[in-house]
């Protein structure tokens, strides 16, 4: 059955807010239509300024929050300026139009029966994990799962989203340069607590740089702990057609990050 009504879906949004929140980091809120209403944590959107001179391809951004308002659906994401595409995003102003696609991809699975939820966030990874923590909190009113978030960043000036995460989770932080929290990698923080997380009661979610995910994988391989990781890769179409984002899994097969992911079981991933 071909859903012709989807062809009516607007592939656009309007900038509601584009706020600098840290050294090189921004939070953007977009007004769009109800297509984003049912976005789940771990899913992403593809965004591209409408202006002609903007870079050709949209940029994939993990969804941070979705809210239904009188005007429509507001979707938020965090981003860091790292190149031409994000540079172009940082210059957008309230009222500017954008091309928008989403929600896209396979998000995190929720396990309402687990009592311990562990989140491992590296840098920008805190965004989808915050959406996840808030989704867990909405899940079972009256039942409080223990949600522990281990958040790492390069430096104090790079920390984003911590205050909001603290509303849903107990947060421990680390910084590479020691200006904030534990001096070292976020994986060192979780290593201490790992033995206290029983296999049947815990689920671990991770989002951050490949080096962090690789270390976490080495720490959890063979323990039987359920771990899901959100990865990223350069994208063109974002919907599974071009095969540009395909990555090699441990079993040798290739999976597209945009439709088969971005969330995968950590033990299925392969790192260089």
């Amino acid at each position, binding site marked *: 059955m071909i859903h012709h009504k*989807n062809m009516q879906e607007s592939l656009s949004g309007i900038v509601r807010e584009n706020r600098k929140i840290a050294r090189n980091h921004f939070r953007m809120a977009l007004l769009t239509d109800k297509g984003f209403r049912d976005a789940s944590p771990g899913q992403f959107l593809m965004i591209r300024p409408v202006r002609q001179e903007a870079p*050709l391809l949209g940029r994939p951004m993990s969804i941070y929050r979705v809210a239904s308002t009188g005007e429509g659906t507001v979707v938020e994401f965090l981003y860091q300026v790292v190149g031409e595409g994000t540079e172009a995003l940082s210059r957008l102003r309230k009222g500017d139009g954008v091309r928008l696609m989403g929600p896209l991809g396979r998000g995190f699975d929720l396990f309402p029966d687990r009592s311990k939820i562990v989140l491992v966030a590296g840098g920008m990874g805190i965004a989808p994990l915050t959406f996840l923590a808030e989704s867990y909190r909405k899940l079972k009113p009256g039942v409080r799962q223990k949600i522990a978030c281990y958040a790492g960043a390069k430096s104090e000036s790079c920390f984003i989203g911590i205050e909001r995460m603290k509303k849903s989770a107990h947060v421990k932080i680390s910084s590479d340069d020691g200006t904030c929290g534990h001096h070292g990698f976020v994986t060192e923080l979780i290593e201490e607590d790992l033995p206290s997380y029983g296999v049947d009661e815990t689920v671990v979610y991770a989002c951050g740089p490949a080096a962090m995910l690789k270390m976490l994988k080495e720490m959890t391989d063979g323990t039987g702990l359920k771990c899901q990781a959100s990865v990223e890769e350069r*994208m063109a179409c974002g919907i599974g*057609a071009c095969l540009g*984002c395909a990555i090699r899994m441990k079993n040798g097969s290739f999976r597209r990050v945009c439709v088969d992911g971005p969330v995968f079981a950590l033990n299925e991933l392969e790192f260089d």
Partner: protein
Amino acid sequence: MKLKMKVGIGGGLTLKNPVMAASGTFGYGEEYARYVDLNRLGAVIVKGLSLEPRKGNPAPRIMETPCGMLNAIGLENVGVKVFIRDKLPFLRRFNTMVVANIFGESIAEYRKVAEILSGTEGVHALEVNVSCPNVKKGGIVFGSSPGPAAEVTRAVKGSTDLPVIVKLSPNVTDIAEVAQAVEDAGADAVSLINTLKGMSVDVDKRVPHLRHVTGGLSGPAIRPIAVRMVWETIQRVSIPVIGVGGIQCGNDALQFIIAGASAVQVGTAHFSNPRATMDVLNGLEEYMVRHGWEDIQDLIGTLNVSGGG
């Protein structure tokens, strides 16, 4: 004014309009069906098919460049048999032409793939990708010179009754010469251009942006080269020429059509605009209404070079 949009692309094949979705940019159709009414497309050209499934290259496979992008996907595909079994049925639900893009690492492979698809209902034509290496001849790309390109064409033509379009590589000195050779070998049409070989360097890490080092450049940046090559080819062949290269809107498509192309393919534009094919088609129709052209076939090849600026 009722517009006539039908065009012939050789081998007895007529498209309802000149807009085709280019191979490698549209998957096997399913991914875009929610954004585009596939019934409105002139044709869908599916991702290139080989005899056996291929995994493709390791990541990173793509890199954006000014007004374009490089890709080194590595011809990943499900293989011709899985395509017929799992992908073709979906496409057959729509009223559009299905063109199977095919390739091989040897002449024998091209033959086998062509044979398998020839007996298959729902496939209306073959598009032959000659921009891949002949593994038996030290990896020289088939389409890099007239001889091997003609050999592939002859082999495919000999293995099928379906119309055969040969997709040409632009990484040659004289593309019109290659076009002529494949025409002589029996091609029903040619499509050009495939991607141009390119490279991009990460200056911070001092490594290539693509794991494969080099890749194929596509997008608006290549359009002038593509238009030029279509123009040169039109002078030398009698078979229909299909134009490909950086088309994003009706005016882009018109450059090719006016230069002589009978149809066009839309590719990279899909990545920033899933509805690109519809925008191109609507743009063509708007132009025809505005300038009083009732039949698109009357526009083909109307480029006036004598009074050129």
